[in-house]
């Protein structure tokens, strides 16, 4: 048995694992990334896209903190669109279609080039811990790798089980095997495990599709990037295609529903409501005789087309019949069939906000293994786990993003505090301060932190500082410069918009606040310099137009943060706290909140319980102060003798 020493080991090279490994290595830790297959790095086993509402915000946050997902999707994307353009700046979100192969290749290249980072192909079977401190992992070949911190990012592989119709077998996402021993090992180590179910649709050969019977969905004709660092240039875009299921499709599903493992009871894991199988949709929304089906390319150089909206675990013959009943897919040739996958996850209420397990010091878990879904959710967790693993190794304070600072913070707080009963997907509706957590201002929110963590390089940080300064400068000018009645360009603009003439002098800022005036108008009227970057312009425009709402949310955040600032000591014994209701005692013991704020969000904990807790903490504080004071007095007395 050979022994190797690392500071951080990451198990699993999916989206979480890649971010975790890169972060730890970039922060200077000697890092090892172990994966079942080096060909499976950053695999996108499901939809070939990244972004969308809430998810785009996550990618932007990852990027602002110095993570890789944004840069990588910018390299690999073959289409990009801005969603929600009509629904307001806070909820605008980019989504890109990826060339899956390029995505994997680029990420693999980045990992290989990363200093301090080694890659290893192996299956980890066991975690070794000594008196609650993680020590090492042992692989299938019996090799032992010692480490100070371990990040587990094993996705849907833990005891993975693939189900198609009445066939089911052990396996991870196609084409990789499952990790069975590790799941058992986690149970042995004392972790509560849950079981989830998710699914993926069939892939169809491009040349077998009749696109004339579908509707084309082109990308946006403007320059969009996920990463603030990606070169601002246009790339050629490929289209997606939209078609619909027919009454005939639904008939076929209903005729064969008894063969669906969801209904025969073969599948036991909890499925997702936001990503139901097609058969679920047909059954649950029986009044709808048609559902949207999107056909998305999996890459530029592959024949595979992803049939979005068609997640299914129906038997193969039924899958084919279903597809053939859909316009454009009458002659579709299936390259890969759809399947459902069940897998174990670590119940996330066992985690701290750093994603470290409470049970074992130095053991972190991130991504789908924590019961979440989605590449972006996984990557953001991976980044946070990687950062905290590295900081722990270096003896630094934990790094936690608050709900008021980032969607990443909302997600991790939800996971650890509220518990989950289906794969967790981030929604913008989950964020209380959505207007502040926009994709456009992720850099303003987080890049400084990324710099302090050592993940954002000097040049990027300088760019941010320049941007901040420039924004402040332009804003000040806009707030100070007064336009007098009779200003030719402004009066012309107002007339053009059917507005009355200026009665009093107004500042540029006030002018911009009017709904009919936009930033572009101000630039055209020569009131804002053309040299001000587009990015700064649009951010100032948001700040101006939404000032009232933003201010309201900022005030809410102040109140929120007061509660977050009240810490609950680690070792608190809830059995000792008098006056707690039983329900909340049970929940508090399970979740072990780190602050009064988090306690108040824990389901089952009432305001009265929070008040009682506050008093208990104060009592504790005073008695320990008293004891300390007492000890000091004794100390001096002893000294005098």
């Amino acid at each position, binding site marked *: 048995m050979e022994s190797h020493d690392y500071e951080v080991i990451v198990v699993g090279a999916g989206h979480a694992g890649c971010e975790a490994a890169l972060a730890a290595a970039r922060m200077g830790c000697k890092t090892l990334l172990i994966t079942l297959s080096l060909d499976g790095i950053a695999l996108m086993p499901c939809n070939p896209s990244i972004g969308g509402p809430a998810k785009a915000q996550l990618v932007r946050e990852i990027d602002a903190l110095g993570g890789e997902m944004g840069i990588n999707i910018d390299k690999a994307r073959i289409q990009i669109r801005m969603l929600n353009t009509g629904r307001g700046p806070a909820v605008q979100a980019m989504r890109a279609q990826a060339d899956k192969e390029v995505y994997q290749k680029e990420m693999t290249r980045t990992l290989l080039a990363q200093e301090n980072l080694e890659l290893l192909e192996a299956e980890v079977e066991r975690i070794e811990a000594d008196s609650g401190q993680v020590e090492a992992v042992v692989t299938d070949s019996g090799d032992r790798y010692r480490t100070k911190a371990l990040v587990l990012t094993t996705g849907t592989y833990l005891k993975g089980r693939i189900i198609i119709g009445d066939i089911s077998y052990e396996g991870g996402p196609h084409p990789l095997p499952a990790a069975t021993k590790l799941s058992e090992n986690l149970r042995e180590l004392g972790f509560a495990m849950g079981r989830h179910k998710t699914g993926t649709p069939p892939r169809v050969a491009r040349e077998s599709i009749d696109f004339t019977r579908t509707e084309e969905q082109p990308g946006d004709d403007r320059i969009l990037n996920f990463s603030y660092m990606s070169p601002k240039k246009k790339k050629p875009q490929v289209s997606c295609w939209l078609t619909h299921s027919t009454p005939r499709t639904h008939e076929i599903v209903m005729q064969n529903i008894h063969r669906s493992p969801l209904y025969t009871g073969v599948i036991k894991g909890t499925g997702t409501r*936001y990503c139901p199988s097609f058969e679920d949709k047909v059954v649950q929304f029986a009044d709808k005789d048609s559902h949207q089906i999107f056909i998305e390319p999996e890459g530029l150089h592959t024949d595979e087309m992803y049939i979005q909206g068609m997640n299914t675990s129906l038997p193969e013959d039924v899958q084919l019949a279903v597809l053939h009943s859909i316009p454009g897919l009458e002659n579709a040739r299936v390259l890969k069939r759809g399947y459902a996958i069940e897998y174990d996850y670590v119940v996330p209420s066992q985690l701290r906000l750093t994603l470290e397990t409470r049970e074992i010091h130095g053991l972190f878990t991130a991504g789908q293994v924590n019961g979440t879904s989605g590449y972006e959710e996984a990557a953001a967790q991976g980044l946070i786990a990687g950062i905290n693993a590295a900081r722990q190794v270096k003896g630094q304070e934990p790094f936690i993003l608050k709900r008021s600072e980032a969607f990443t913070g909302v997600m991790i707080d939800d996971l650890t505090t509220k518990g989950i009963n289906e794969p967790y997907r981030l929604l913008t509706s989950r964020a209380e301060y*959505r207007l502040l957590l926009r994709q456009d201002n992720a850099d303003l929110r987080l890049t400084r932190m990324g710099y302090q963590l050592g993940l954002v390089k000097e040049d990027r940080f300088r760019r941010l500082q320049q941007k901040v300064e420039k924004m402040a400068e332009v804003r000040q000018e806009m707030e100070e410069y007064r336009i007098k009645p009779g200003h030719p360009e402004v009066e012309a603009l107002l007339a053009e918009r059917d507005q009355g003439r200026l009665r009093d002098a107004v500042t540029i800022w006030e002018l911009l606040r009017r709904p009919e005036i936009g930033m572009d108008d101000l630039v055209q009227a020569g009131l804002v310099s053309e040299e001000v970057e587009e990015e700064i312009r649009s951010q100032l425009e948001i700040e101006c137009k939404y000032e009232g709402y933003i201010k309201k949310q900022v005030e809410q955040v102040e109140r929120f943060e007061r509660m977050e600032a009240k810490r609950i000591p680690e070792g608190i014994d809830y059995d000792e706290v008098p*006056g707690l209701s039983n329900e909340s005692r049970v929940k508090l013991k399970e979740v072990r909140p780190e602050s009064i704020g988090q306690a108040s969000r824990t389901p089952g904990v009432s305001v009265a319980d929070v008040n009682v807790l506050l008093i*208990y903490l104060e009592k504790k504080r005073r008695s320990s102060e008293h004891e300390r004071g007492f000890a000091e007095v004794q100390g001096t007395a002893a000294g005098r003798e």
Partner: protein
Amino acid sequence: MEDTIAAIATPSGEGGIAIVRVSGENAIELVDKIFLPVAGGRSLQERAGYSMGLGWVLDREGQKVDEVLVSVMRGPRSYTTEDVVEINCHGGLLPARRCLEEVLHRGVRLAEPGEFTRRAFINGRLDLSQAEAVIDVIRSRTDKGMRIALRQLEGGPGRKLREIEERLIGINARIEASIDFPEEVGDVDEEAAARELLEVGRELEQILDVSRRGRIYRQGIKVVIAGKPNVGKSSLLNALLQENKAIVTDIPGTTRDVVEDYLNIRGIPVRVMDTAGWRETKDVVEKIGVERTREVIAEADVVIVVLDVGAGISQEDLDIRDLLAGKKTIVLVNKEDLPEKRITTQELEEMFGDWPVIRGSVKEDMGLEELEQAIEKLVLRGEVQADDMEMMVNLRHEEALHQAKVHMEAAKMALEADLSLDCLAVDVWGALEALGEATGRNLREDVIDRIFEEFCIGK
């Protein structure tokens, strides 16, 4: 310092004075906004710590709500060690409640049960040995408040509230689904949303109105008039109602099997209860049943048992007396205007012990004044507590409804101004969260659940 909170401090025992206590970082500044000092008086902000000022509390229209004595205590020399303002309302509980409302509408938060005490403790005002006692206060007041709230939510108005809540969840879900799943759900039908917001806003206004008139929830002390048929109970009720302008009139649409009316007896809100059909039937106990009578009586804080001096004391009267064991009871010997007197003082003493006895005539308006005094005395001596807890719960609900309404109005304006969906969502969430305060639920998850129930998500 923490955020600013307010509540009615325990009002009993002090000759009809009730205190609105305000504590926190902006206490002085915020109360100043509703305080008009007497001519030549100083504003609160200009006052020294520990001083009193005479003046009026004004509502938003500038109308005087009550004449008050306001004391300012600057932190740390106050009960909570924060800046504290106490508004002494001598009109009693009802005006105090209105003053509190005005304070709340200026952005002060209604205190949680026991919150002042909690702050006093945390800030070092109370010593360590008092911790347990503080916890007890919080616990018992909360539990009691919860029981009251539950009871209130079970009734008709509670149902109405949940209906509104359901609709708001629906509106929220539609907006959120459209934001989070734009491709599957498509655009929000803004006209329909506007219509619905308007409707919900109106319904909110309605319950708020009903609640404001004091009828929707229980509050004040409960007085039951008991007595055998024909002794003059209904007449008494009517007389009391006429003298003390009833606070409310009946509310259509709320079904009750008990007729209730509110009186304002010397600033004390008094709810007089009379069992349904009392007026029509000639044999009450038989009609409504002994059980129901017992129930009504059990809930009463004070019972007025009416005797007919012309009819004398019969077995029926004694049966009623037996139902009243342990109750604060006032005996009214009615119809003293009749020439024939068949009840002697001795009989009364023998049969009704030391219950206060008033002889009078409803018809001739004799003894009613005395009766009211007797009620007041029971309350002020603390033998009967005007239930400030109930009032606080009631107020908490109203405040939540009020906040919800404010958010709904903002939402309506956002729609009219054609603001984007993300802004509209802020207001609609705000309304829902405010309602959640009333029903004690966090409704965010309900909205997310609703999205998945109503929309076929998952492209």
